[in-house]
């Protein structure tokens, strides 16, 4: 049976005042990007006067489900979470729905056909990010007919950003046969693996023109490998990455990276707006896309001083 609406406000974990309680389940702290994301949520909750129940899933879906279920028993007002994976949320979200708790997805989508299970999804479009990377490449090599050998550093196998950034990119470049992905391996989204895999690429692939890395960290690791091999990153090998964290932007401004597609972690303020609306029962759009852009070295130099993460 569904618990009645009236109970939810009064019993919220906050202790009886009128503060909105938000249960937020984060994926983990697997990267600087994620930590910035967490920080953004925490800070904007504080400044919006929202009582935040934060739970870290340490990269495991089961932990996230547990957390959501606990939020339901604690009768928070709104639940928000960044799904670890796309599938498998039907059951627990239905429990939330039965308990009349609105759910907001952040950063990553879920694939449940029943879109009434959540109020909205706020986050980037990873496929679009891949496409942006591809489009820049196509433009860069416009008018040239020599084959372009690309190596790709993928994210963790199976992770949504890895999948989508790969497919978006592939979709754009497949239009022109001169683009060829000669090697593609996982760099696990980390610098060390990015460096290690790139080192091997440099030896096993005689000719590399372009490196496409699914995040900045792998790209930064790869730069070290390229330099150790006596090549000049950004010149001998063109580098495209995604994310635009501070370190990546610095490298971009130094022309070691040629192009970065932004993927902003600063969802906090937007999320808090949505939380308030959801609590108030206002209608909100099913999909909210974070404001994101792309950076060239010149733009990076400009943006760098004001970069927060």
């Amino acid at each position, binding site marked *: 049976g569904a618990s009645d609406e009236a109970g939810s406000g009064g019993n919220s974990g906050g202790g009886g005042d009128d503060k909105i309680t938000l249960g937020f389940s984060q994926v983990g702290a697997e990267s600087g990007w994620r930590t910035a994301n*967490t920080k953004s949520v925490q800070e904007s909750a504080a400044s919006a006067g929202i009582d935040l129940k934060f739970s870290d899933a340490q990269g495991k879906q089961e932990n996230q489900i547990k957390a959501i279920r606990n939020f339901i028993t604690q009768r928070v007002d709104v639940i928000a979470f960044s799904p670890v994976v796309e599938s498998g949320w039907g059951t627990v979200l239905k429990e939330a729905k039965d308990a009349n708790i609105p759910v907001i997805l952040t950063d990553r989508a879920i694939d449940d056909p029943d879109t009434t299970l959540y109020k909205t999804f706020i986050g980037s479009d990873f496929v679009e990010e891949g496409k942006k990377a591809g489009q820049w490449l196509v433009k860069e090599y416009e008018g040239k007919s020599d084959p372009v050998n690309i190596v790709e550093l993928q994210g963790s196998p199976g992770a949504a950003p890895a999948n989508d950034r790969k497919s978006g990119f592939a979709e754009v470049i497949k239009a022109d046969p001169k683009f060829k992905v000669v090697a593609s391996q996982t760099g696990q989204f980390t610098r060390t693996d990015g*460096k290690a895999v790139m080192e091997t690429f440099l030896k096993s692939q005689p000719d590399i023109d372009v490196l496409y890395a699914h995040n900045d960290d792998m790209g930064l690791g790869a730069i070290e490998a390229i330099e150790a091999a006596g090549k000049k990153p950004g010149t001998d090998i063109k580098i495209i990455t995604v994310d635009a964290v501070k370190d990546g932007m610095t490298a971009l401004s130094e022309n070691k990276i040629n192009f970065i597609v932004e993927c902003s972690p600063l969802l906090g303020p937007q999320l808090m707006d949505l939380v308030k609306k959801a609590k108030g029962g206002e209608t909100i759009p099913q999909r909210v896309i974070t404001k994101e852009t792309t950076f060239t070295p010149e733009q990076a130099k400009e943006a760098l001083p004001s970069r927060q993460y």
Partner: protein
Amino acid sequence: MTNLLRHRLFWPIAVLVVLLASNLVFSNNFFSITLQDGHLYGSLIDILRRSAPLVLVALGMTLVIATGGIDLSVGSVMAISGALACLLIGDLSNPDAVGPVLLVVGAAIALCLVFGLWNGFLVAVLGIQPIIATLILMVAGRGVAQLITGGQILNVRSEPYRVIGAGYFLAVPVSFLIAAAAVALTVALTRRTALGLLLESVGGSPTASRLAGIRARRITIMVYVFAAAFAGVAGLIYSSDVSSADSNAAGNLIELNAILAVVLGGTALTGGRFSIAGSVLGAVIITTLDITAVSVGVPVETTLLFKAVVVIILCLAQSATFRAKVFGRFGPKRAEVPA
């Protein structure tokens, strides 16, 4: 010939050779070594360089396993040491001065020693089962590392620090030299002194060892301290390699690889006899395996499967019973029962 076949390390070496040979066939100039900017450059050098952290961790793990224990916390200790080093270097006024960096490195390793003592205390003094005792630090340690870095990736720009993991000395990778020195130290410590014998005795039979007057407790604590110290050095190499501390990725799952290396090298997990050469070889095999998967171009989806197959083959090849059953060598032998 049979003697050679029966040698403890024959099969690991054979697998290593096969792995390298497959590179010869499937990937270009894998074996070329050139001089690049005054240092050696080539895939084989990569293998030496990249084996270093795993070799270090496997060394410590070998000693721990010899006493019948296990240390799951090495990965977290790696993360902590890298995080602390990067944090401290970030605070240095002149990160390019050698002295302060050495001090920082010393501080990081000292912290790891404390963690080693902690593990040893739980196991030897409180008598908690090693797997659980070290699980505590495995879980909490990574949190500590993240606490140090504030969950961010800490970047450092320090030439002396960079040398540890990415530098060269006389054209040879420094990380390799460090690992080699650690191996030499461990060999000297265990085989030149009586430590090896006492370790094997404690691992083989704790009760008998106690009655023979061995200070099992002290020795047990010591091996955990060693394991943590080596893990700490490995963490420094890991973080210095990319001049940054990533508390999440550093040493992730390295405990499994290290244990795998130790066992591939012929040391039994039940404790007792151990082989340092075997563990080093095991670590090199695992690194080679990872590099081979990339250089041969195994698709991402099948990398793990590839690893599984190699491990299975190696295990079976090492099993005397398997060889006997399949090749009928050495005559069948059913049960190993003490006389």
